[in-house]
């Protein structure tokens, strides 16, 4: 019986285990609504008077409005109201400016009656916690219960927490997987969504990528096919998503999920680890992909989505319809990507009710390649994680020499994506200081003043020289040891 369950639990923990139990901890442990947990505490306390006399102590919470005389001394407004309006309050304004003051007071059972008398109006009293002996004055023992509650809540879905425990739910709250935090885009990057072609990438760890994506998203439309990946898998927070850290130059934002149907709650939010991705764009024409890859693309497409401000709701439905058929492309300019790297973790100009996603485009020609391979290739990241170094793709300006119709050799500067990693960069810097010198002015074109370019370029070279002098040592420690 349920009664026995909580009775046993409380008896074990409080009487035998000599621990304090708050209503929150009880609700998490027994997976019940907090109000029910409050009742359980009360009932156990009542029964403990006979069963375990003097072994269970209760702490109560009183919520209500306190009498003015006993208001906390720092409350200036109350004293102003009780006295004639002072100069600081306009008389007219003061009359209409009633400040409702509610107090929540935590009292041990011994002080309960006395505390009740200090309240002018009591909204609610309930048992906050039960413990073997009276708690110390600052109630610090309860902090441990709070920590345990938070640890339990950490891995749970916000919606599940609301439903089970009665926590107020916030429709827009979405907890992302570890290592897949949405990369919040500066607004400049948002505006640029033009198709951009990209060269094909070397084969990544496709399987890992795909399995990750499937695990993150329970398929809304369970495929009739047998799938190598678990359908409707729940989130796996401890999954090592090391290669999906935000080291690559990627900007992907969370899709707007406020208006989406509840099943979308476990929809994975954008992670920034991937460099290329299939993107859903409602206005773009979709390229038919063979059915065999549709499942894969489903996973991938659900990971990413782009949205316009108002039509997100429609878009979600559209997306679902299109999922089985198509892969679409979305874009952003590379410059914004670099800007986004610099602006990591800072969210600005974000309307919480609006999502803006930003994804890389993929080469349309690649659609014709073997379906299963292709989306994975584009999506997954290139190199395995090399320690804590940044790696991934970076935009490099390359000079491409071509012969045009008249036989003239022309040089075009094109920005292409290249994979790199920090450690590689250091070695490159060490080995070819001269050759990269020419490319730095172009790279630094985003800096404000021309003089700055030279300064930065100069500093870069100094750094390189230092490194060279240090015998090619690429550790940061050498800097401080000097």
């Amino acid at each position: 019986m349920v009664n026995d369950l909580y009775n046993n639990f409380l008896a074990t923990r409080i009487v035998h285990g000599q621990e304090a139990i708050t209503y929150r901890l009880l609700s998490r442990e027994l997976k019940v609504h907090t109000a029910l947990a409050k009742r359980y505490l009360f009932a156990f306390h009542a029964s403990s008077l006979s069963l375990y006399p003097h072994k269970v102590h209760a702490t109560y919470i009183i919520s209500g409005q306190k009498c003015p005389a006993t208001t906390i001394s720092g409350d200036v407004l109350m004293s102003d109201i009780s006295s004639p309006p002072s100069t600081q309050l306009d008389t007219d304004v003061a009359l209409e400016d009633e400040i409702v003051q509610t107090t929540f007071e935590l009292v041990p059972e011994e002080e309960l009656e006395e505390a009740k008398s200090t309240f002018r109006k009591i909204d609610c009293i309930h048992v906050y916690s039960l413990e073997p002996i009276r708690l110390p004055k600052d109630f610090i023992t309860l902090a441990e219960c709070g920590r345990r509650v938070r640890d339990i809540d950490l891995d749970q879905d916000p919606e599940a927490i609301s439903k089970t425990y009665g926590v107020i739910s916030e429709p827009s709250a979405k907890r992302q997987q570890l290592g897949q935090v949405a990369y919040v885009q500066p607004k400049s990057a948002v505006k640029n969504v033009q198709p951009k072609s990209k060269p094909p990438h070397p084969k990544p760890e496709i399987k890992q990528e795909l399995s990750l994506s499937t695990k993150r998203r329970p398929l809304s439309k369970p495929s009739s096919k047998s799938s190598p990946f678990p359908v409707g898998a729940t989130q796996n927070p401890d999954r090592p998503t090391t290669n999906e850290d935000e080291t690559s130059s990627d900007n992907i934002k969370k899709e707007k999920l406020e208006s989406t149907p509840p099943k979308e709650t476990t929809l994975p939010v954008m992670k920034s680890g991937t460099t290329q991705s299939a993107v859903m764009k409602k206005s773009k024409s979709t390229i038919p992909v063979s059915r065999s890859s549709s499942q894969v693309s489903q996973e991938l497409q659900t990971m990413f989505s782009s949205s316009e401000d108002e039509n997100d709701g429609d878009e979600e439905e559209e997306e679902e319809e299109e999922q089985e058929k198509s892969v679409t492309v979305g874009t952003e300019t590379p410059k914004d990507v670099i800007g986004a790297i610099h602006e990591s973790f800072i969210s600005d100009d974000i309307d919480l009710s609006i999502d803006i996603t930003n994804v890389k485009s993929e080469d349309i020609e690649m659609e014709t390649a073997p379906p299963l391979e292709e989306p994975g290739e584009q999506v997954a990241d290139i190199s395995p994680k090399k320690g804590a170094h940044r790696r991934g793709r970076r935009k490099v300006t390359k000079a491409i020499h071509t012969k045009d119709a008249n036989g003239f050799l022309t040089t075009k500067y094109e920005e292409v994506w290249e994979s790199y990693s920090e450690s590689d960069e250091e070695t490159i810097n060490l080995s070819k200081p001269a050759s990269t010198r020419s490319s730095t002015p172009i790279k630094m074109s985003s800096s404000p003043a021309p003089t700055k370019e030279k300064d930065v370029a100069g500093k870069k070279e100094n750094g390189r020289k230092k490194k060279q002098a240090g015998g090619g040592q690429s550790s940061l420690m050498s800097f401080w040891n000097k």
Partner: protein
Amino acid sequence: MNIMAPVASTSTLDSGYLLSDPKEDETFPMFERRASSRKLISKYNDEFVLKNTEKTYEQQYASLYFLRLTVLKPRVSKVAAEAWNGMSILNQEVKAVDRVLDVRQGEFCWIVGTVYIEMTLKPNILDEITKEFWTTAPISKDKFADPENDAIMLEDESGRVNLVGSTIKSELLVTGCVVAVLGSETTSGDFDVVDIRFPQLAPQLPRKMSTGHERKYVAVVSGLEVSGDVHESYETSMLFEYLMGELGGSDDSKHASEIIHVIVAGNSFSNRRSPLSRDEESPDNSQKRKKKYGYDSSSYNSKPTEALDSLLADLSASVSVDIMPGDQDPTNYSYPQQPINAALVPRSRRFLGSSFRSVSNPCWWDIEGLRILGTGGQPIDDIFKYIEGDDRLQMMETCLRWQHCAPTAPDTLWSYPFRDCDPFILNETPHLFFAGNQPEFKTKIVVGEDGQRVRLVAVPKFSETGKVVLVDVDSLAAEVVTFALNGTGRD
């Protein structure tokens, strides 16, 4: 005002309804927050958030003052012209004088410029250096105002003029505000002030009042000062439980569910050092401790960050939260403070983009049509140091009337040397203006000449008072919820 009248209970449940035995199959009400728009006003906030690639400190601060004067001069001239045009004193018609130095003796005229107050007690870096050679310890003061000896001047692009007169002494002025003064030049070359005008409240956007009966609140709390210590004040936990709707009865939960947004306004991280690190600081140990990357990492106390992070992550699952830095928080010290890097709060960071956001200090919001300007309290604290008087609300109101939220920047409030614009100028009056980390809770409504209505709130430090302020988005009514532990001696 009849607060002693018995308040009608709106609760349908008895206050002790939770003090009863659990019933089988009882369902409890589930509350959900309304989906609402909680935006940042990017046209103002973008100027506060400085891009690392574009920040440069090579310029002087003079450009900031010049920009301020350029923008505010026409505004205050307009107010002054409306007030003084056509007026005549001693049969002389007053006229506007463009440049401060063009004032002629005996002529009644009005001039516009930036106030500069020469303060004898103002901390001066040169004095501090000379004091280092003497053994007397500097006396720390709360206030640096010295009304008898301070000289008030008006300055514009051309020059400065000393302002004298009883009118000027009684007015609340700080260095950096732009005003218009009416008067005439005395024989000694000072400007005797007869009247003074501010730009007054900037235009306010009309509010679209929602027609629904549901109430919506914005909760503002500041000075949490989470330390993660064993002796952490328990009120913080109670606050978060309340915001999540777990504390109290169903009426309390219902009220908490009407909170659509929570703003944590500054000083969320505690500055106190843990006792552990103090033990380790014996002189023998300090030399042996290895210094890597130029500092000793073992002296870093990660407890405040971890504790705050776990609280915020819990809260973000239930309500949308914005965290704004204060003067003690781990971000830059100068104003405007950049948003706290979300990497410091990894668990809450998982809600980034949905219900968690890190914003700058100061910051502008637009929450369901309510325009909010919030600061961590530094401008007000700085103004407090340089004037007489304690009325924080009056300082806040005067900031609105000066159309500038941080007039003492960059003089005494450290600031970034802006080149293109002065982002602290108020181009519009917000509906709610709050300053965090104030010593006590105070609030009032200010009414402007054109019908603007602003709710001013001085949000007290939670670590000292246990108060969180709720403001009704539609009616601008303010409420305070206090969390107390019985027997802590705070009463």
